[in-house]
């Protein structure tokens, strides 16, 4: 409206604001490639000779077992979510019966229950069933944490399957499995994939259950990072490298899924 100059200025302003906003993150990436001595300077040092020492240090500190725990918990719990969630989303969208909205409301309400209110019995139960510091405890909890969200999200994708296609399939004599495989899945597959990515993000970043229910054996990546609070002030560069390594997988997943992120975050309410 103000002509080309105004639009250009606004673009520059947008870029400046965006870079300022993510500056802590850019600084972390920069610090990850510093020697510790370069990380503590006043004023902060922008130019330095980059090194990979900190990444080596993180691996030496025993990062890999935490990484593999995180990967295992995330992948298995996401598979469980799909296994339980796809039939449920189907039942709540394409074959609804009485009580459908109650079930949907119930799933949503579980997201409002503060997790801190359940942690004590979960701890006691885990202790009595030898699930303490065991990846399976996290897998069970992350499945139930993500399932309501996944059902809502996948339901919104299932609802987009044209009704005529299903009816036509039924008239042609297709059974339910055939209907699912030949007609429904091709339409909803991208949505299911997006849902899986959202579940991966939430499982990977989960902190509360992981810190309270796991330790050295089954600890996930956030638990590894907690090890840095005791050594505050001494290992900034290594901490930055660890934070970067721990966040990188989920950052990549998030960038891939960014067009579906809104739908996931709003549980399917916003496309």
């Amino acid at each position: 409206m103000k002509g080309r100059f105004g639009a250009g200025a606004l673009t520059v302003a947008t870029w400046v604001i965006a870079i300022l906003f993510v500056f802590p993150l850019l600084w972390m990436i920069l610090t990850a490639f510093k020697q510790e001595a370069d990380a503590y300077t006043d004023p902060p040092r922008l130019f330095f000779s980059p090194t990979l020492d900190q990444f080596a240090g993180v691996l030496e500190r025993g990062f890999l077992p935490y990484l593999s725990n995180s990967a295992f918990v995330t992948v298995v719990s996401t598979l469980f979510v799909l296994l339980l969630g796809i039939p449920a989303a189907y039942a709540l969208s394409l074959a609804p019966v009485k009580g459908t909205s109650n079930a949907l409301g119930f799933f949503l309400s579980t997201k409002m229950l503060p997790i801190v209110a359940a942690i004590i019995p979960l701890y006691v139960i885990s202790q009595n069933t030898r699930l303490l510091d065991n990846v399976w405890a996290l897998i069970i909890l992350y499945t139930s944490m993500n399932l309501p969200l996944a059902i809502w999200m996948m339901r919104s994708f299932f609802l987009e399957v044209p009704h005529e296609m299903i009816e036509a399939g039924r008239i042609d004599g297709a059974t339910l499995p055939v209907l699912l495989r030949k007609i429904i899945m091709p339409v909803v597959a991208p949505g299911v994939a997006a849902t899986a990515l959202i579940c991966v993000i939430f499982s990977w970043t989960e902190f509360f259950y992981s810190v309270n229910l796991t330790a050295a054996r089954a600890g996930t990546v956030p638990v590894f990072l907690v090890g840095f609070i005791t050594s505050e002030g001494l290992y900034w560069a290594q901490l930055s490298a660890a934070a970067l390594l721990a966040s990188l997988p989920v950052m990549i997943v998030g960038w891939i899924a960014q067009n579906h992120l809104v739908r996931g975050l709003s549980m399917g309410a916003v496309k």
Partner: protein
Amino acid sequence: MATLSAPARTEPAHAKKAAPKRGTDTPFKRRLPLLPALLFVVAVTQLPFVLTVFYSFQSWNLVRPGSRHFVGLQNYLDVFADSTFLGALLNTVVLTVICVFFSLLLGLGLAILLDRKFLGRGVVRTLLITPFLILPAAGALLWKTTMFDPTYGLLHNAIGTDVDWLSEFPLAAVMAQVVWQWTPFMMLLILAGLQSQPKDVLEAASVDGAGRWRTFTAITLPHLSRFLQLATLLGAIYIVNSFDAIFLMTQGGPGTASTNLPFYIYQRAFQGFDIGQSSAMGVIVVILTMIVATFALRLMFRTFSVQGGAK
């Protein structure tokens, strides 16, 4: 999938499935695909809470084995007489309200900036969502060290003060980190709202000579209200449970200055080993959440219908 295909595969040739009507299956059979998910979620999310209620009527400290006994409402009386609990309750309210408000405001601003075509828009959007994608634990440690450190921190260099943010303004420091982390979430939801505006209405407003501000307040804001409500509600659900930032940045301190309810319950349970009292706190938190959620939902729907009527 397994539950779906198993029963049907045994009778592939049956003509009954070919019927065009949907009502051929029994109601039970049609509910069957839903049941595994429903039972699983009930078992994992509801049963523990029932146990929390049960524990809350007991005196039970893990440090004193064999001392477990039924005490009725004593835990609840103790909790309400506990000034730290009340302080943590206040901190939780302050943290949630302020963080939701500021991340919503910042998210709105960023979404408006992104709601136009410009060079590198995709890159800027990707940059802006990234604080939400990194591990919250990594974000909290990052702010604690490289941002807030009184000697080498970036804030010290940017503003030039030697303020030790984490001990002088612990709650504000935690809130700054939480706002930074949640702004992208708000931005994405609001951006989706902005982009779903009907283009013809905006053009009509422009043709009628409405200025930008007038168009924004008269058309865009009413259209956005549904998205703002959703963002507020979802943001509040997550932020009220904030634990990572407090655990990693301040440990609730100094003293109890930045202790919120999730952190205090964690402390009583895992450092004080007081199962009975921390369970009572958990029950109180759930009741408060239910009350607030009900009122918030009602209030928001009322606001929505008023604005919708004025449109």
